[in-house]
């Protein structure tokens, strides 16, 4: 049984940052990832990372932008911390080697981004997430003696003791199918979001929210599950992301008539209003017949100077060319809102602690909440690093001076049995995993997306419940142990369905529109009744709804216009 003081599950930005922070205190650290760490979805974050580093800027301004962007659902104490600590974290990244863009004087340079009152987004061309993550992985290499890496190990379940404390995790070595019970004094979930529940999505195939589901089953509270961000500029069909950085560089949004329609929805910030506002604007244009026949509007990047495009938007030149057959330097590209980010997740405090003892969460898997009802662009990379670091530090502290709790080996036997049951299901007796997943994705994208209503969400919930049953008998083809991706797909499907149910219930519960949740049957924001978080937890057999208050420090909720 491998023992570690701190066990990190997930090796994207948050996980790697947590591991490095914990290792620096001297505790033993293990980091597990179901894919090689550099394949984590952090590498897809293109545009940049926010920090009020400039002398003319202030963390208060950054905090206000974030709070307003969250539609006042964000917890202000957490947001203050994130914005206050951002400059130091950014400099730390630069010192370990991230190749941030520079201005003519050789200092760190910024670009404009959505929802920001001042340009404070630091970037590396349009591969910021990739650049930061690879730099963190370099540091993991440098400190290989301090941090044990378990690359391509799939975590199936958290290990809990009788008192409800998290004492480790059960994982499966993908390469040979062997299963292990890892013991740990603190476990940090950093397994990312759950975009694959919706189809199409910008998210990678690995984004199935395994950590959210495991925490849920372990008794942790999930918060703000209805807050699902649809990114304004994704390619129709496959859902590929076109970075907000394009709009930051000056690109325009046009409807089929060639109008810059954002004038009518956000006259001040125009294309750089917060994402939910822009997505709703686009969807309205499309729904009211002013979009193109393929259900899109146009993003015109040709207004940006060619040299600048090649320097700062290189990645989307390639995306446009390879996946849409469009040269973005010469013609507009068709886009539409697409599933992108989960503001909700496992509820934590400002140190990443969940309400399950020994269990932490950081990054997209967590809901602190710093993003509330809507996340600003370039705040996610920041979130992962600040709370990754804080979780790592606190988890290390929690681990110091205590011994390992005893862990029952029956947990390992249970998981063995669970996997064996899936493998042993009768072929042809049920549906294929991929069929169920496809139906889930289409249902959620159709009914729990940009615009929602009671009837639609209820229908979605019924479908999800039926699919949960069907998933119980979904068969797989691969019965082997070596690199069996089939059985992983079945485990991921279980995880996704549990989260989809929680999301539907939360969306039904919130009878107002705030941030990313827009109910056509309750189109106004209602602070009097709904300025609170919606929690979902597993009680006995079913999900249970509760509320938790929003922490307000200095910024009273106001009307939110751009």
């Amino acid at each position, binding site marked *: 049984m491998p023992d570690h003081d701190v066990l990190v599950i997930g090796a994207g930005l948050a996980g790697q940052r947590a591991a490095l922070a914990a290792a620096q205190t001297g505790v033993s650290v293990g980091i597990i990832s179901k894919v090689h760490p550099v*394949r984590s979805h952090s590498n897809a974050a293109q545009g940049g990372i926010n920090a009020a580093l400039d002398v003319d800027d202030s963390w208060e301004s950054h905090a206000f932008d974030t709070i307003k962007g969250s539609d006042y659902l964000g917890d202000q104490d957490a947001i203050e911390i994130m914005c206050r600590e951002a400059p130091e974290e950014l400099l730390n990244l630069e010192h370990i080697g991230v190749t941030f863009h520079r201005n*003519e004087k050789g200092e760190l340079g910024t670009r404009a981004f959505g929802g920001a009152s001042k340009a404070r987004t630091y970037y590396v061309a349009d591969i910021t997430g990739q*650049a930061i993550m690879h730099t963190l992985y370099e540091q993991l*290499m440098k400190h290989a003696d301090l941090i044990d890496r378990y690359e391509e190990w799939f975590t199936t379940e958290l290990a809990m003791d009788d008192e409800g404390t998290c004492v480790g995790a059960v994982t499966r070595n993908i390469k040979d199918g062997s299963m292990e019970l890892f013991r740990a004094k603190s476990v940090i979930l950093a397994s990312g979001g759950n975009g694959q529940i919706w189809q199409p999505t910008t998210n990678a195939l690995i984004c199935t929210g395994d950590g959210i589901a495991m925490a849920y089953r372990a008794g942790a509270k999930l918060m703000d599950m209805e807050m699902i961000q649809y990114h304004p500029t994704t390619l129709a069909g*496959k859902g590929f992301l076109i970075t907000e950085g394009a709009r930051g560089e000056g690109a325009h949004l046009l409807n089929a008539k060639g109008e810059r329609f954002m004038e009518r929805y956000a006259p001040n910030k125009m294309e750089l209003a917060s994402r939910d506002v822009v997505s709703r604007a686009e969807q309205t244009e499309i729904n009211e017949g002013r979009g193109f026949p393929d259900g899109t509007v146009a993003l015109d990047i040709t207004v940006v100077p*060619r*040299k600048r*495009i*090649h320097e700062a938007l290189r990645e989307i030149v390639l995306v446009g060319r390879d996946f849409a057959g469009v040269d973005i330097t010469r013609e507009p590209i068709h886009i539409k809102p697409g599933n992108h980010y989960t503001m909700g997740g496992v509820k934590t405090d400002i140190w990443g602690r969940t309400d399950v003892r020994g269990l932490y969460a950081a990054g997209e898997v967590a809901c602190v909440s710093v993003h509330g009802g809507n996340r600003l662009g370039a705040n996610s990379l920041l979130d992962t690093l600040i709370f990754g670091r804080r979780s790592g530090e606190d988890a290390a502290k929690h681990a110091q001076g205590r011994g390992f709790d005893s862990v029952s080996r029956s947990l390992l036997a249970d998981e063995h049995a669970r996997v064996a049951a899936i493998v042993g299901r009768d072929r042809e007796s049920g549906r294929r995993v991929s069929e169920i997943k496809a139906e889930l994705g289409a249902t959620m994208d159709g009914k729990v997306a940009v615009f929602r209503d009671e009837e639609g969400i209820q229908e979605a919930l019924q479908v999800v419940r039926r699919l949960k049953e069907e998933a119980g008998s979904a068969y797989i*083809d691969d019965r082997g142990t070596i690199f069996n991706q089939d059985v992983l797909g079945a485990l991921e499907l279980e995880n996704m369905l549990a989260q989809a149910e929680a999301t539907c219930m939360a969306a039904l519960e919130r009878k107002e529109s705030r941030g990313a949740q827009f109910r056509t049957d309750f189109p106004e924001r209602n602070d009097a009744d709904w300025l609170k978080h919606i929690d979902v937890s597993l009680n006995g057999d079913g999900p249970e709804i509760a509320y938790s208050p929003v922490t307000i420090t200095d910024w009273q909720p106001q009307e939110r216009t751009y």
Partner: protein
Amino acid sequence: MAEFTIKVRRYQPEAEGETPRTAYWESFDVDLDPTLSVLDGLLQARNDLDGTLAVRCSCRAAICGSCGVKVNGQSTLACKTQLGHAAAESTRIARTEASGDIGREGEAVQRETDVESALGAESSVHDLPSSSTQRSGQTGREAEDLPGSDLSTPSSGGSGREAEHSPGSDPREAEDLPGVITVEPMGNMPVIKDLVVDMESTHWEKYRRVTPWLMPSGPPPKREYIVPPEAMVDVTQAVACIQCGACVSACLSMEADPGFIGPAALAKAYRFVGDPRDGQTTERLYDLANDPQGIYDCTHCFACIEACPKGVAPMDQIMRLRRLAGHDHDVNDVNNGRRHELAFTSIIEKKGTLDESLLLQESYAPGIKAKLMPSLASIKGLIQSVPTAIRGIRTGKMRSLPKLIPGVHHKLPGDSQEHVKRIYGRAEESRIELNLYVIGEGGDEEGMPGAEGVPAADITASAQAEEVTRS
């Protein structure tokens, strides 16, 4: 929507029943829009037809680097290759072979066959001389050790070695329709299952070899390091690497020498060498230049540049490392790489063409003085190079008698040698580090940073003069 056949080279390590114990081909028919990717095709096959098909994938958008494979023999990302293009390419290859115009690939095969017959097949690197296997990466050395690496096809039924030119060994034989998309695991790395290869033992091992983290010389400044913006833009090309392994898969040098540090790791090394904040520039260059499997082990073949899906151009990064090492930091490596390069250019400058018979002596004992009083090291180096030279002669690298006699190179037609010497005479030396990542492809009016060189007018004049002489 259209129908495509994807022929996958599979390997099931836990094969039971009727499944072959070694590698085998299996075809899947999928029905998808031609603009969707080969990965989409593989996933449809896995989702609907056979869940045992193993392929790494995640982002589907050419950013995570998981899905490195070989499509129609070309190392690339499965998610970046469109089904329609892949099918068309497969048709083109099949037609080229069928028409008897053996084309580029065919010529390569022909040369390989000539080499093998000259050497009596004693040191053949590949089991099968067909072009498909030439690109299919498993070296002769590894084939023995690993299960599943001989390409026994159902029809040939024998071990790879026997197949030679027999029709059954080629996956694109007559019975296949043109347009069948062939997908194989990446080369130069052991196969775990189907399209999943062991990257840890090869790719990541070499990555760690180049000390891939920033090593500043002192404590960090209070705020950020001040660096020239061009430096950060420059290394962004190497930072763009997503570690997919396609270049490692395609590397011909690595096929012949598995210990070669390789394109991905060396591009990563440039990322630090080119970063002004790193304090170990000279040490890194010294190390990589003197390692016999370092920067001078690259054969300059462009396969990695062709394979790279992100425009990293690994070979260019290796050449930059060479320039920095030899030219800027005066590293005269023990592999004689630097002197070899200088020998090349000085011979061409003097003779207007590469007189290969002079190459060895010039690189080990450059100039008159060194030839009159050769050092012990250069004598040793010359003697050690004799077997290579003999092999070169036997395999037809130097085809005419005059070429064998040092200094007596036959005169090239017309005035070409004089032209070349004239270019040397007129050209001004300037160093342009081309960074296509920044400039963009297809010729950008605003893009080219400070392109200098021979004034356009002179080039045109000479070209016109040439035209007149010829006609």
